[in-house]
Each structure stands twice: as C-alpha cells, then as structure tokens.
C-alpha cells in the first residue's frame, strides 16, 4: 500500500501540496504516482519565476517506460525548484514526500489548498480509479 500522509493535500493528477509556514506551497508527486510510474530516470523542473495556472503542466517526470507531466495543483509563481533531481531522479521513488519534492510555489490565492482533496478523500479516489 502506498503512503498518504494526513497533513498534505492532494490533486486528481496525483500531486501532493504542503503548506509551509511562510505561506509558500511545496509540491511533488504522490507515493502512489511514483509507484505507478516505476523507476524514475529523468525529471525536468520549470524555471523559477514562471507563473503557472492550476492544472497547467509545469514539470516532467520520466520513468524507464514513459514520460508524464506533472500539473500544478494550484495557480502561483514558482519560487524554488528541486535542482538535485537532475542528477538523482530516483529520490522521487525513495522519498516522494520529502527529498523528492519538485517545486515550491507562491500561491496566487491564500485559500488555494481548499480546492484540493484531503488525505481520506485522496485514498478513496485512488481506490476508485
């Protein structure tokens, strides 16, 4: 069974979002998503400063078998990206909710996370897929 931490929010595209103390939002792909993709071999993140809409493709995660887009679960401005993934994409497999984060956003709206699923709803969503 894949992990789904209770303190995060989740999108239908299998991204997670964490509210940081400074108001920024850290985003990555869920443990379920990395498990479905298999071993990641390449991750491409956006340039810091880029503005993204909700559900806009903003990063690429590639496993041995296929390339998948990561969508911004909420609108905002990219303020930091995880550069370490360029050399170690497998960190996303090993630690999807920690070292395997992809981008940090400054959200356009302060209550943006309320549009996302909580952990219980996401678990049911994964079950139903």
């Amino acid at each position, binding site marked *: 069974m894949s992990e789904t931490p209770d303190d995060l929010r989740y999108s239908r595209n299998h991204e997670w979002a964490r509210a940081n103390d400074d108001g920024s939002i850290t985003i990555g792909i869920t443990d379920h998503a990395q498990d479905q993709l*298999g071993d990641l071999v390449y991750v491409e993140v956006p340039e810091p400063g880029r503005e993204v809409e909700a559900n806009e493709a903003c990063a690429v995660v590639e496993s041995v*078998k296929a*390339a998948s887009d990561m969508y911004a679960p909420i609108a905002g401005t990219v303020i930091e990206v995880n550069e370490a993934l360029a050399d170690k994409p497998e960190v996303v497999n090993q630690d999807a909710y920690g070292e395997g984060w992809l981008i940090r956003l400054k959200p356009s709206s302060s209550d943006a996370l309320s549009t996302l699923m909580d952990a219980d709803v996401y678990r049911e969503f994964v079950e139903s897929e």
Partner: protein
Amino acid sequence: MGKKTPLYENHQAMGAKLVDFAGWDMPVHYGSQIEEHHIVRRDAGMFDVSHMTVVDLVGTQARPFLRHLLANNVDKLQEKGKALYSCMLNEQGGVIDDLIVYFLEESWFRLVVNSATRDKDLDWIVGQAAAFGVDVIEQPHLAMIAVQGPSARDKVLPLLDEANRQAAADLKPFYGEEHGDWFVARTGYTGEDGFEIMLPEDQAAGFWNALKGNGVQPCGLGCRDTLRLEAGMNLYGSDMDESVSPLVSGLNWTVGWSPQERDFIGRVALETERDAGPKERFVGLLLEDKGILRNHQKVVVEGAADGEITSGSFSPTLDRSIALARVPAQTGERCQVEVRGRLLAARVVKPPFVRNGKAQVE
C-alpha cells in the same frame, strides 16, 4: 483478465507488478526494473517467457520448407541442436515476424516466435506448409524460463538432471538440446550468456523456485526491454513490422543471399530494394543532451528527410538515453531528436551499446 502462464502464482507470491502484454498477465518488475537490469548484467536474473509461441515443424520436407519460408538460410544448420535467427517475410519483403529456429532432427525443426504475432504467424506457416506436407504443431504446454547473466549458467547447472548436466555445461553458444521432455538452449535476448529452458508446464513453478533458491533474481519484462535495447537486438512491432524490410531494420546480416537459387519468400522484393540502394538505414543513437529518447520521436537530419526512433529508453548500464532509429541513408555522425517540442543533440553509433556487461560505445 489476461492469459496466465504456469508461473503466474509465483509472480504474485514474489511481489511482481503485473501488466497486460499481448493478452497475457506478465510481470513488468518485482520492485525495481533498474536493479533487475543491473543484476542481469552483473550476476544472474530469470524471466518467465512462457507466453512465447513454440511451434514444431515435423515431416521429411521440413528443411526444404524452411528454405522457402525463412529469409535466413536454414542450411546454415548442419549440426543437431544449432539455432538460427531469421526473419519470416511476406512477398513484399516486409517482416511478418522474427524467430529462432532449432535443428533437432532432419524431420523435426523447432521455431520460437513472438506471442503478440502468434495467430498471424501460425496462419502464415500453416498456409505455406501445406504444399510441403509438413505438420505444424504448436506446443502450448511448454513453459519457458530464460536465465541470463554472467553467473546464469553456473546457477542453473546444479539444478539440472544429473544425467544431462555435463551436456548442458558443454553446450556452445546458440545451440540447444533435448533432455527428455526439457529443452535447454544457450540463447537469450539480453546480450549476456545464459540459458533458455523449455519445460513441461507442471514443472515450471518448482524449477523457478529452485532457481530463486540458488540466487537467481526474478526479473520482469521491463528490464528485458532495456537489456535487449542495450544489446542492440530488435523488438518486433517496434523496430520492424510488415511495412519494412530487414534491409532497413539493421537485419541485413540475417538474410541468406547465397546460394542465389534459393527461392525464399520475399527474395525478389529484397533484391530489388538492395539493388536500388535502401533509402534508409538502421542505427543506434546516444543522446548527448539531458532527456529520454522514446519510440516514434522524430529524428532531424540536416538536408535530408526525417527519421524516426523505433525503440528509445534509458540505458541503466550507460546511465544515459539510447535508441534504435530508422534514418535517411545519408545520415552522418550526428543528428537531432525532437523530444517534447525541443531539438536535442544525438550521436549516431553502431549497435550494440552493451555486450557481456561492457559498454561498446564511448
């Protein structure tokens, strides 16, 4: 629910992630495709390839039939047990399938063909065999396990019937032999040494477990694909199909041109293409920029038509992306590949990329 091999329950018990492959529920990996890949290059891994189709050709005219059916020349098989890789072509020179043929007896040859093409292969073979009076007998109750890697033979031999162990140890590359109702061949699809073993389906699970007990890692079809790509081996349906000939699929070496009088199916079309000079050639690509090459990406060559990647992936051994591609004949040492809207630099190389654990390209 797809078809299940005799090893389906073993796969489940060993934690395989199962996917549909040509109508079969097959393991894609047991945890990490990349780790499995490295184990085959460095030690020994095993693959359930029971979905592949085994067809015996029986009759006094079996050899003349194969002279006609196959693009490679079955008369290269003069010693019992010897195997030959060949394409089976249509009249237009297009590839119906690629296969291995084993010479077992003068009136008995064994073919191993792809599972995804089983139905059309059998239809074609049966249709062609009628004129030769050769019986086409599928062997659906044989399981097949490929054990591959530098330690593979050492880990298999102690598990074989004692009476046959020495004979198996003495098998030369690309030979196979019968051991009662088992068939052991020194063949594979990974670029490593090893065996492919056909055995009765009710003995497959026990043998699989014994191999596991002897330190052989179960491996899925995921790493089978990256291993064969590194080894520069074609995959039917990706690298060639009925719309292309062996001459533009890197398989010129498998066409038995001589003797001139051997009348194999597709010969006239191939000769016409050869004499005109093929417009395309089949090459390996090494990606020099960051990214991953994928099937069907466009290859851009200056001053020439576009080419296409036929198999692209990540090479765990080389830690970079590699591909097989069909490109214009005039392609030089460099090209570009359109990857997700961007043009990335690639170098043209001659496959294989990796053989016996060692990189073959700079």
